[in-house]
């Protein structure tokens, strides 16, 4: 009986020491890797000489995207965009965890007949505009985030104008969750395809490039745009849907 009580703290302290050593080694390795990649960055050379000038000069040649902001967001800095969409995912998860108490909220009857008819005419065009903004992100101003917000507006219109039960029937939270996960998986899958085919995570896929200015060009940028768009739209719709519970009980 006494021997285990003697040896148990020793083993535990040894385990702790090993854990600390392992953590220190891993942290030192990560710090070294970060330092090595930071040392690769060119120094500050003034506003007209540095990285911004390089992007303006050869961004179109490198990425094939006419919209240089999209070129920066989804090619040069795609890893950062992945982090941003992860932030949105975290916000959606937190809000749903805190606010959601039951799946089907109390629904209103919606607004008047005039508003319902008018939005019935207008909503398909809003959806078309959102899809246009998403798919033409590499050609015109816009991109995944903006188009996704427009798609989320459709769900918000359904909730307010037709009542949230209509929104639930049309696009249930399960559908929205599937869309959001599908968008995130598209992004990650294109990143892994970059590892397999080009050698770096989220590298622009070379075999997808085409003539500059056409719809299917610019490597993997349009597909990342579409994935991010569905992810952001579904995420914002989920946030709105979990926030309206017991808010619109009376009809206006």
């Amino acid at each position: 009986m006494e021997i285990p009580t003697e040896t148990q703290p020793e083993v535990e302290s040894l385990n702790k020491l090993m854990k600390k050593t392992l953590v220190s080694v891993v942290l030192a390795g990560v710090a070294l890797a970060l330092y090595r990649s930071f040392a690769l960055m060119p120094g500050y050379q003034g506003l007209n000489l540095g990285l911004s000038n390089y992007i303006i000069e050869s961004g179109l040649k490198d990425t094939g995207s006419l919209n240089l902001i999209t070129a920066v967001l989804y090619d040069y800095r795609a890893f950062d965009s992945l982090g941003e969409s992860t932030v949105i995912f975290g916000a959606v998860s937190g809000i749903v965890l805190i606010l959601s108490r039951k799946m089907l909220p109390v629904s209103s009857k919606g607004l008047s007949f005039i508003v319902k008819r008018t939005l019935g005419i207008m909503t398909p065009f809003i959806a078309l505009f959102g899809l246009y903004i998403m798919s033409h992100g590499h050609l015109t101003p816009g991109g995944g985030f903006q188009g996704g917000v427009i798609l989320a507006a459709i769900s918000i219109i359904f909730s307010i104008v037709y009542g949230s039960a209509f929104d639930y029937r049309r696009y249930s939270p399960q559908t929205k969750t599937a869309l959001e996960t599908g968008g995130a998986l598209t992004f990650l899958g294109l990143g892994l395809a970059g590892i397999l085919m080009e050698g770096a995570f989220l590298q622009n896929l070379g075999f997808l490039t085409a003539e500059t200015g056409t719809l299917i060009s610019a490597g993997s940028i349009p597909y990342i745009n579409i994935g991010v768009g569905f992810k952001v739209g579904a995420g914002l719709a989920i946030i709105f849907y979990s926030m309206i519970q017991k808010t619109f009980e009376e009809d206006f």
Partner: protein
Amino acid sequence: MTIRLIAAYLLMGTGAAFAVVTVLGLLRFPDVYTRMHAAAVVLTMSAVLVTMGTAIYVWDFFLSAKIILIGIFFLFSNPMATHAIARASYKREIALPREYEIDAYSDYLGRDV
């Protein structure tokens, strides 16, 4: 070409005049609903006239078509928005008309205001 520019400026100027009318109405009308009635002028007439004038001014097929689409969107959405705001503020009794002899919508709702 000059006739086209004159027409464009005429349409845009008419839209600006309707905007001035709206400001006058917002300043002079007594309560919420009449002010909303004045504000609907700038939402519908002024925006549509200015978009029509801009479409004639640029005079390029796709650009003009896009601007006219924006104008049609205004024409659909703005009266509907005014209607929704007025109806909501009446039904939720945010601001009720007090100085009118006839209030048909109140009778329709079965409410004795």
